[in-house]
């Protein structure tokens, strides 16, 4: 390994070994370290630019080096997790049900895995993966769908009657998980900012932008059902802008945002509402700002309240 990169890796590993980060998932750790570097740039520059570390390099060059080392370290843990998720945990048996012509499940998986690796290459897309990955790991979709299908209210109606999914609840969950993984692919069509770690986690895009991106993705990923691609890309469009967005896409947008804000709580303060209930309550008031479907938020809020989540 390049000695400069080895020094960067040593520095990054030292930061990663901090016990404060132990409970976080790899992408969250990465976000924390990038934020730490940016916030403390002024204090770190004199030392990191010294002969002991990266002599003669500017802060941007140092940051780039550290970012490279950081993503390598993160990928060592993250890639196996994502591969396990795509190859084993998410069942793609639903793909043949949502479109007329048959798509081999294995090829669909393979293209999803290749796409995910592409996403990891682009800082903005990589950052956008935090919410979806956290949401899948914590199975938000599974938990809320189960309750929703028991009550057969708005979410159930939207999925089964409006989107007309003739799937088992488990398959719908996998479909939402796949949609979540596709959601950051909108970032492949945005211009990068160049500075590692910067960039907004998720931005709402216009329906036309999503439509253009969808056309391009369809051409690139022929073994991924267009319905699934549409869900992933349109989950970045505000529901206020387009009332035709699939229910799976709307749910993916909500769970991705929840995943982004998710923080495990060891002990809930007395007098405080539960984390999910608090989050849905706050998000209901900001639903226009985030472009969410208010009725879905209402239902999830009700489920969270009743379930003590």
């Amino acid at each position: 390994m390049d000695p400069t990169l080895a020094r960067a890796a040593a520095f990054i590993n030292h930061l990663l070994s901090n016990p404060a980060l132990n409970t976080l998932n790899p992408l969250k750790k990465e976000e924390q370290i990038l934020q730490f570097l940016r916030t403390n740039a002024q204090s770190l520059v004199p030392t990191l630019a010294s002969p002991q570390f990266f002599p003669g390099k500017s802060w941007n060059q140092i940051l780039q080096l550290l970012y490279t080392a950081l993503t390598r370290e993160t990928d060592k843990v993250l890639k196996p997790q994502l591969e396990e998720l795509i190859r084993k945990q998410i069942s793609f048996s639903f793909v043949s049900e949502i479109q007329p012509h048959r798509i081999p499940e294995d090829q669909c998986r393979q293209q999803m895995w290749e796409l995910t690796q592409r996403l990891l290459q682009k800082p903005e897309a990589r950052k956008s993966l935090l919410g979806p990955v956290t949401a899948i790991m914590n199975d938000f979709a599974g938990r809320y769908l189960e309750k929703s299908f028991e009550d057969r209210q708005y979410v159930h109606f939207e999925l089964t009657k409006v989107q007309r999914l003739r799937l088992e609840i488990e398959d719908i969950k996998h479909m939402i998980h796949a949609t979540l993984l596709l959601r950051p692919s909108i970032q492949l069509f945005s211009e990068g900012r160049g500075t590692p770690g910067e960039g907004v986690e998720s931005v709402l895009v216009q329906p036309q932008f999503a439509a253009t991106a969808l056309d391009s993705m369809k051409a690139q990923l022929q073994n991924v059902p267009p319905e699934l691609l549409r869900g992933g890309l349109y989950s970045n469009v505000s529901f206020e802008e387009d009332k035709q967005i699939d229910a799976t896409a709307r749910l993916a947008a909500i769970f991705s945002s929840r995943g982004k804000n998710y923080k495990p709580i060891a002990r809930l303060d007395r007098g405080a509402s539960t984390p999910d209930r608090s989050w849905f309550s706050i998000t209901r008031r900001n639903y226009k700002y985030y472009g969410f479907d208010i009725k879905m938020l209402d239902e999830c809020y009700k489920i969270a309240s009743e379930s003590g989540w």
Partner: protein
Amino acid sequence: MSDNKSTVQSAKRRGNGGSVVAFLESVVIGAILLVLVQTFLEDYAVLSGWNVDIRNKLLLAGFFFDLFFTIEFLIRFYYALMGRRVGRYLTLERGWIDFLASIPLLMFNSGPFALTLLTGGGIALGLGGILNLLKVIKAIRIARILRFLRIIKIFRKIKNVSSPMAQRHVASITAISVTVTVVCLLFFTFFSTTLRINGLDTAFSDQQAATADYLEEKTNDPGDFILALETLRQTRTNLLIVKYRGQTLFSRFSNDYYSQSFAPGDYSYLSRDGLELFFDQRSYVSQLSRESILFFVIVVLVVLAYLLIYSPHFALTVTDPIHVMRRGLEETDYNLEVKVPERYQRDDIFELAKLYNEKYLPLKDRAQNEEGESLIQLDLAEVSHILPEEKES
């Protein structure tokens, strides 16, 4: 260098001093718990008819406890005096409880009893007309219960009492309630004694005086006197001993029985021109013990009710919502709402909590989203070993 050394040494001294004070405070807390048990047992022993030896030992234990707390009060008072904070000690730090539950008890309750026991006497406590005094002495004893207020701090570990504000409020309201109960009891006892309001004590006194008068009339005729004694033996079962000019003319029980069954205060003594009468007043002492236990139980239940019922209620409706809102305002990534109980939603604190939930948190959430950053859980200390030390100005 020497400065550093002396600082370290003084810190060590402070540390040692601190641990000694903590140890002494623990001893005091232990003594308070024990004296409460002793107070209860002293009365329980009367009601259960425990052996006089045990009752005397309990009385002596009470004396030593009161002596200990008197010394403790004097030491605290001395240090408060030296620190020019007597007013603060007596009021805010509840020194008045230390005073009421020590010196008056030693002087008017356990002290005289202990003196009687240690000198082998007993007559002094049985002097005629002592019933009212006995009642007052017993009432003063209830001041010991005030010590409950000193140990409230050991209940801090109880669920819901972790907030200093909740602790202070619960301690204040408990102090007020217990003090009012004790003061009412003391006031009523003094009031009824001073105004001679008729009660069990006056009935006992009147009966004893009437017996003495009756016998005194008969002293001129020995035949009538013997006949009167025989009548009294059958009708006045509380008449224990009759002596005339130093000679015992009547004794209901043997001396062994008296020594085993009568503790100081269990009998009274009347004297009229060479006539000496001893009366059994154990039934009256039992009545006083019953009342004492009743007040003791009332105070214990009041204290427990405040700690276990009012304290959680106070936390639920005041300190918990404040705690959640304070964290939300202070911590970047704390976004939990305040839980608003439906039945209290019109309380001012929950009206405020609703604004916090419905206005502040959504705004905070949007601001955070626009900044796109979350709370960093790392700080520069993590890499302090590679950073140059800052030069002191």
